[in-house]
């Protein structure tokens, strides 16, 4: 049975405004650990591997904040590391003696819908050392490898700098390169354009709610939309146009949330008009005007509870205007 190594560079530490990976390349922070419709992309990737029969999954990450837990998923080991690529290579080397099957390696910087069984069979048919997943835009951070061909020296270069045989990915791919991609992932899921399922119950056609979510009298939810676990929607609030309000957040009295993602543990104040945006605590990204604001006025937006949970806001604070991506046009049409 196959095993898998998942590498998540949640923080590719560098100076403010420009991020440089451990390999000296300019890179932006990964969104894979951020919850979208109840689960992170990382968790969804792990579940996909488990469903395909991958029985041992090692996750290497340099994320410093409190990490989501996978206790309920069998065979998942999380290993925080300053250099996740090196740690992954060392683990592969140590366990090579018992690795008698192919190894799936994912650099989790994109959301990819693929069949791991297909990928493993593709590599077997090619009899090559390594194959790499790709779509019509080019190579992705997904490899199937013969572990005996992996050396401990610079795993990143081995995988990225060689033109390996390409395994075509025909499923949905979102490269999560910028905040617009993150928003697009939520919209595409709510519009049933991908397999990503919201976590919770579909209480009405197109309206999903997580455990413990409260929607007060007079609040209005327009399909499709997602209300995460523990969320409170206050009276006279309106949630519309493929908006998702993630766990432990509050939308206060009379506020309109339109075509917007409210990330976990965020408070959105009274009487606001929030549209085409991503909110994370006191950070607001407006995707239409392409600006990132830190709002110090806690009556407007802020962290809901003290940040014991994952705090992804500093990732958004580092986004510049040039890296926003293309905004989603006509969300109403997307909603179908």
């Amino acid at each position: 049975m196959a095993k898998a190594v998942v590498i998540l560079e949640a923080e590719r530490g560098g100076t403010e405004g420009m991020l440089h990976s451990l390999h000296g390349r300019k890179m932006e922070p990964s969104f894979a650990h951020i919850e979208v419709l109840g689960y992170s992309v990382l968790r969804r990737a792990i579940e996909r591997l488990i469903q395909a029969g991958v029985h041992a999954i090692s996750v290497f990450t340099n994320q410093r904040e409190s990490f989501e837990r996978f206790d309920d998923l069998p065979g998942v080991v999380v290993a925080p590391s300053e250099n996740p690529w090196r740690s992954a290579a060392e683990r592969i080397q140590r366990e090579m003696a018992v690795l008698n099957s192919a190894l799936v390696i994912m650099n989790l910087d994109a959301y990819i819908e693929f069949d791991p069984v297909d990928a493993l069979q593709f590599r077997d048919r090619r009899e090559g050392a390594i194959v790499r997943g790709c779509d019509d835009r080019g190579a992705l951070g997904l490899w199937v490898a013969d572990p005996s061909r992996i050396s401990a020296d610079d795993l990143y270069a081995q995988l990225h700098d060689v033109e390996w045989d390409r395994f075509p990915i025909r499923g949905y791919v979102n490269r999560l390169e910028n905040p617009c991609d993150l928003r697009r992932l939520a919209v595409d899921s709510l519009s049933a354009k991908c397999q990503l399922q919201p976590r919770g119950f579909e209480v009405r056609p197109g309206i999903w709610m997580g455990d413990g979510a409260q929607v007060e009298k007079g609040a209005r939810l327009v399909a499709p939309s997602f209300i995460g676990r523990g969320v409170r929607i206050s009276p006279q609030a309106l949630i519309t146009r493929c908006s998702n309000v993630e766990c432990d957040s509050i939308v206060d009295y009379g506020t309109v949330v339109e075509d917007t993602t409210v990330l976990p543990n965020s408070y959105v104040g009274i009487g606001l008009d929030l549209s085409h945006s991503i909110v994370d605590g006191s950070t607001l990204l407006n995707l239409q005007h392409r600006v990132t604001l830190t709002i110090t006025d806690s009556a407007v937006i802020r962290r809901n509870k003290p940040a014991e949970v994952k705090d992804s806001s500093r990732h958004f604070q580092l986004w510049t205007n040039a890296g926003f991506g293309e905004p989603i046009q006509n969300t109403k049409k997307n909603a179908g």
Partner: protein
Amino acid sequence: MVTNGPVVVMQVPEQFNLGEVHTFMQDVGPLLQSNRPRVVLDCSQVRMMDSAGVEALLHCLEEALKRDGDLKLAALSPEAEVILELMRVARVFETFGDCDEAVRSFHAIPVDSIQPAAPWYTARFGDLGALKEAS
């Protein structure tokens, strides 16, 4: 509305928060006390504005309107636009792409002050019915 005084253009500070509002109001206050004040606020440098800043803008507009004047916003930075839209006050203000346009708007002649010109046939034939009879 006929106004004879000059149009004053004032720069809104980059950090338009509780700390800066007091200073700003001290500067703009005298302008709003004049008869029929005409003020343009240049918001091109605004990078941060909190609810105190928004409240100050609304207060200035109110004071200007009380004295039969007006206050307009010009060259809104993206940050200022986002904040005004977020707090649902963007539609309250008249906004312009640049200060010159805003200043010119004070000198524009209102449409309803122009009497529509009489048709060409009025002087000779009177109303339209008479013109048809004549032709």
